[in-house]
């Protein structure tokens, strides 16, 4: 069966809520039912049929041909299968994912992978602010799974993260790993101001010394690190990085001593 393919007819006239279009959400729906699903978030209330041409029928493998920064909530809560977007997406891509694989070939807006619990989300382009982070009012950040951004990420990447792995390859904005509870954030290409602010536990792995760090982080030497070896090997075997990141004995900063102080920032010596 051919992948169920949504081809964008024209640039969307309004922001769209694509959260209904997931493998599990579309399983068993016929084409007419799919076309009638409301996506529009303004008074226009566009439906799937207004926005996309549909081809294929395998709902376990969804393809969006063409994207837009107005595509919100792509693959929200997906549990299985694959979703691929050949283009950009808007806010909250892969929000609350639990399984399966979501690939965004363009850029993503804010809150990509917000509250993910499982699965793999790969953004080939760049991501906006609050990568993997909770929405307003929520306390739970990413809680599992793998989130890779091949380009840049904005501010507050991995905010309140508890579990899982986030990797940003071309640098990220300020306050990366803020309020982390645990989990691992990898940033190559440089992080912005004060990474790890308010982190309790968790690891932030960088490819260079952070340019600014809260004084509540304290230098903790550079002993040989088996963890670094494990991590380096994992990142390469998982196809996240091409070469090892930390090396044999990375430098370590511990913090945030203002909070619990059990987090760490590691970078190659």
């Amino acid at each position, binding site marked *: 069966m051919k992948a169920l393919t949504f081809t964008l007819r024209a640039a969307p006239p309004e922001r769209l809520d694509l959260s209904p279009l997931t493998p599990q959400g579309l399983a068993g729906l016929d084409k007419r039912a799919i076309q009638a699903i409301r996506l529009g978030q*303004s008074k226009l209330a566009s439906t799937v049929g207004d926005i996309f041409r549909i081809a294929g029928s395998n709902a376990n493998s969804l393809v969006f041909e063409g994207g837009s920064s107005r595509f919100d909530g792509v693959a929200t809560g997906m549990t299985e299968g694959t979703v691929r977007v050949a283009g950009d997406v808007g*806010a909250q891509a892969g929000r609350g994912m639990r399984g399966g694989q979501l690939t965004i070939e363009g850029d993503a807006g804010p809150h990509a992978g917000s509250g993910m619990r499982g699965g793999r989300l790969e953004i080939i382009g760049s991501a906006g602010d609050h990568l993997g982070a909770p929405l307003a009012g929520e306390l739970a950040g990413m809680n599992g799974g793998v989130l890779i951004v091949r380009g840049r990420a904005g501010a507050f990447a991995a905010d309140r993260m508890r579990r899982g792995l986030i990797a940003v390859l071309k640098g990220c904005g300020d306050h990366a790993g803020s309020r982390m509870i645990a989990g691992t954030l990898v940033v190559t290409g440089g992080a912005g101001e004060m990474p790890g602010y*308010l982190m309790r536990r968790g690891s932030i792995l960088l490819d260079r010394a952070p340019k600014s760090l*809260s004084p*509540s982080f*304290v230098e903790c030497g550079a002993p040989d690190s088996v963890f670094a070896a494990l991590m380096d090997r994992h990142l390469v075997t998982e196809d996240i990085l091409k070469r090892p990141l930390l090396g044999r004995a990375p430098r370590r900063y511990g913090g945030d001593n*203002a909070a619990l*102080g059990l987090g760490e920032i590691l970078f190659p010596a």
Partner: protein
Amino acid sequence: MTVAWIGNRETLLERAVRHAAALLHASRCPVFTFDTDIHGTRAAIALAERVGASYDHADGAGLARETALLTDKGGMFVAPGEVRRRADLIAIVGELPEAHREFVAELAETVPDLIAINARQFFLVGGGGRGLTLGNGRKATRLSCGKAGLGGTIAALRAQCAGRQVSTPVSNFSRFQAALATARFPVFLFFGQSADGLALEMLQGLLADINRKSRASALHLPASEGGWGSTLASTWMTGFPLRTSFARGFPEFDPWRFDVARQLAAGEADFHLWISDGVKKPSANSGDTKVVVLAKTSQPVAGAEVTFAIGKAGVDHDAVVYSARTGTLNSVTADAASELPSAASILRSIAEHIPAGAELPC
């Protein structure tokens, strides 16, 4: 007195109201920006509900930071009256905004009367310069971590108060520690324009640590008093603070999606209702966005489809506003009452001319 224009032409208020209502009704994605009192806000939100609009404050960004502290963390707060009567240690967190200097001066000139200690000590957390001169010739002791900025300084302060290590100690920490040890009711003053959300969260963490054994609290002196009032009104009317939308027929809160400035910049909005009885002027709108303006003006606003001249709340007409000085909503009597209509009255008239849909009073 002319109070309404369609384009550049004077018109009857009634006609301008009808025209604005028709434009609103025809719009696909209307957005509102306001800077008005509680009644203006209530009327604007009620209208937004009728037409499926999203709304924000003209000072949306600073308010969003303060709102985020409440939505994401909460914390410990104190009423301004209690600060005046009880606080024996005042820590000013970050740059003291002009709008709140008067209150700080008042604190410097008075002494607490509800506790035995008849003096206040002042500290300035972060902030520029060598310290801060308050009223009564008093100075605030500066607590700083050099280049670490306000966020870094609060973090270091909290770590040091908890007996944990820091890489750069806070200047004058021992003086602060000694003051904290004897203070009966320390209060930290904070402002949305001076500190980002994480720094405010850190401050609340410091307060939580202190309150394990003794007392302390924080006084919120909002970035915009009017904006905070609007935030409260929005919250009771819809359950949500500002940056809420009715586009899908029910209130939705999303501080990113319904950041009205963003909606306008991204070309998502096709109609912009600008309501301000203050000095702020609407920002330039993108090409085909239609604009209706309510402003204290004596002439039509360039580029606006419709302009309404409104009076300033509390000046031209009685008003209800949030007061940082009382920490609640206050009734204000017009001190230069005029014939200019209130924002609320124009907005209600427009709502009455929206063609009938569901009859909803909100």
